[in-house]
């Protein structure tokens, strides 16, 4: 039994497999990033993930373990909605009326799978418990967005949603999304913790914001996970859920991810040096950041959000373990062993 950090493991294997011809094609300078004014994503991480592009959707490729985890994301979201659904205008409990944003969608593994559950007829009952009405997926990597769009075209249902605009892939950053939806453009477009963007709370758009395997890839030189989480919560309507997954930084996870998973062949399944254990996040840290983030998200130009921003907040956490041969299993209480899902509900 081992818990593996999927993304980085995948990344390492793929970066060596990228064909020279493909690499050659990339522009010389600033290969994949758009020149965003701000970004919470490090250039290093960006180039690593773009190297994954060619094999992102290969079911036997380096991203396989991530593909295998995807159904559990749906189950975790469904369990959050079952606990406490966001308040919606229509009172029906199975209407497809939730608007999703997927931050750091990569090649679109989660975003596409969720878009597939959007009913073609908006008045039809939701086919799944995730009740999606729309999906906006963003990623700073031009190449991955292109991969995601091309793959989405291979499914007529998803293609129809792309054409109707119910499903959008945007090559942008969270900061830019927030800036574009802020009605009074702030003088500084920097939406980091040092300059809380004015009036950002006035136009939150999304009922559900997802953040799968992203928080551990935040660039520590330009922002902090805390500031990034605050921005995610700003995008969320009151009563909405922010849902993500990451890996905890504990002794068992060190043992599993660094010692066992990276052991020499045939024990190890991950190349040595893949994991950056120090960037992992523990559930209590995340919980505290989320509380702080809710208060910051409630800040406006005139007043600062206090503990009242935490009223109605909910916190959920569920460990998940990869068992070779059996796949991913949710194991309550295993949060500190490695991979886990977490969720924060913004109070109404």
């Amino acid at each position, binding site marked *: 039994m081992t818990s593996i950090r999927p993304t980085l493991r995948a990344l390492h294997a793929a970066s060596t497999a990228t*064909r020279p*011809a*493909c690499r*050659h*094609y990339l522009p010389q300078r600033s290969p994949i990033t758009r020149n965003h004014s701000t970004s919470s994503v490090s250039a290093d991480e960006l180039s690593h993930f773009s190297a994954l*592009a*060619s*094999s*992102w*959707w*290969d*079911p*036997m*490729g380096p991203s396989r373990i991530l*593909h*295998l985890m*995807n*159904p559990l994301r*749906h*189950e975790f979201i469904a369990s959050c909605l079952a606990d406490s659904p966001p308040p919606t205008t229509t009172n029906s409990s199975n209407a497809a009326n939730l608007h999703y944003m997927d931050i750091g969608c990569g*090649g679109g593994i989660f975003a596409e*799978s*969720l*878009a*597939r*559950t959007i009913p073609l007829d908006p008045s039809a009952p939701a*086919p*799944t*418990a*995730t009740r999606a009405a729309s999906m906006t997926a963003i990623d700073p990597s031009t190449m991955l967005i292109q*991969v995601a769009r*091309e*793959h989405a*075209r*291979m*499914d*007529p249902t998803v*293609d*129809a949603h792309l054409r109707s605009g119910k499903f959008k892939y945007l090559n942008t950053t969270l900061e830019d999304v927030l800036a574009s939806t802020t009605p009074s453009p702030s003088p500084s477009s920097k939406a980091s913790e040092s300059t809380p963007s004015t009036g950002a709370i006035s136009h939150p758009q999304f009922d559900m914001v997802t953040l799968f395997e992203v928080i551990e890839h935040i660039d520590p030189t330009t922002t902090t996970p805390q500031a990034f989480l605050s921005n995610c919560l700003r995008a969320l309507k009151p009563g909405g859920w922010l849902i993500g997954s990451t890996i905890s930084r504990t002794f068992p996870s060190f043992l599993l991810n660094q010692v066992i998973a990276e052991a020499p062949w045939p024990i190890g399944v991950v190349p040595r040096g893949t994991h950056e254990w120090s960037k992992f996040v523990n559930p209590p840290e995340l919980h505290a950041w989320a509380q702080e983030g809710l208060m910051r998200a409630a800040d406006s130009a005139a007043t600062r959000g206090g503990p009242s921003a935490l009223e109605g907040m909910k916190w959920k956490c569920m460990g998940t373990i990869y068992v070779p041969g059996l796949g991913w299993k949710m194991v309550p209480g295993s949060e500190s062993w490695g991979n886990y899902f977490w969720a924060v509900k913004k109070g109404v």
Partner: protein
Amino acid sequence: MRPISRAALRSYVCPSCRHGIGAGRRRFGTKTDQTPDIYDVVCVGGGPAGLGLLAALRASPVTSKLKVALIESQDLNKARAWNMDSAQFSNRVSSLTPSSKEFLQKIGAWEHLDTQRVQDYQEMQVWDGESGSRISFDWSMDTPAFEDMRTVATMTENANLVRGLLGRIAASGDENLKLFSNTTVAGIENGTDLQTEGPDLSAWPVLSIKPTGAMAETQPSSRIAARLLVGADGINSPVRSFADITTHGWDYNRHGIVATLSLADPITPPFPAYIRTAYQRFLPALGGPIALLPLPNNNATLVWSTTPENAAHLKSLPTPAFLAMVNAAFRLSMTDLSYMMGMTQSSSEPTSHEDELSWRIQHTPLPAQIPPMATGVQTGTVASFPLRFRHAAQYISPRVALVGDAAHVIHPLAGQGLNLGLADVAALSRTIEYAVSHGMDIGDLLTLERYSSERYLPNAKIGGACDLLHKMYNIPGQGPVTWARSLGLDVIDKLPFVKSFLMKNAEGY
């Protein structure tokens, strides 16, 4: 695996490389202007497996909204209108294990079967014609006193099952459902990228379908695209050829003779009275086992696996001689039986086979478990079919899944063929259900591998066990193999837990 121009496996090719790949491809073929109808599941083959899959998908609330189609070259209306006198039985009969029956009940198909025509049996007697070693299967060791004995298996005519499944599908309404009856698949190819007008279907199977018979000239062929193409199209599966999946196996050089028989009343009535028994005797000298499986009202269906020469000879015999051979096969020694198989029917002595049997039976010690005498053959039911073993190298390929005989054909000595097919269908419908509820693409390999990993080994295990039994019981004489297999049978018969384990395996639990 079939070639896919823009591979489903590696969907992303960087722009510089793609330029080279796209150049050689025809963009504006004659067929590209016709956009195919898009279905979620297209099932080729309207036998019990294909119809079972459709009925299962229609029965589940999760998958009932999927747009499904079924293509069958025979007339499904005939199958729907199938009717037979209550005293007559079709010769195509299958034994359903309790888990198959449970599946049919779960999808609501069982209530559409004519249950007057099905027959449970609670006991099975199997013995070695060479050594007389015997094993009996029943659930008595697992059944508490004063409770009814559990069923070992249920006999049902395939036509009854097919009609029931069609009834179940019809009861689900016709929304999102299309049954292409009397229709053949003229060709399957990969679709095309519709560029700006629509989705990229270049990795999707697109079928050209054509009506058969009288309508063939008047109606043009139409094209349908499948998110998931299911091959339930039998041993020579066109879907399997399209997917470029190899299959390996061998012919047994044996034929199975089937017939519907009526039996005499048993000499000692069964106790409790509802108990019915299936009989199987291995005949190493004649190339395979003979089995007699109960049907309602003291009828039974015969399955006799033997060499093609013996099969041809038996089929050529007049009814009384044929019955004498069947009765002899359950009673006489291998030597007597081989002698009788060599007897030719002469018009001067029309009762020679019966006389021979009644004379030899007086000098043969009969075991307790033999079936009642067969007294009649329903006219027109004696038929034979070749026995084969096949196993596909894979059950899945991008947007393709194989079920039933398209994936595996096994020796019928354990009556498991149809049950494996229904178990495939149950697993595939569960897989599709899981995929739909988790936003997965039902044609994606990541989805389909759940089905294949659930079914490949169990099918290989049962198919291999039947093959092994066939080979072990084809060694005549009193050699070491006969000794060993007889010892094995006797030991298993005396160890209830081993027997119980084997039965649970055969039952599909």
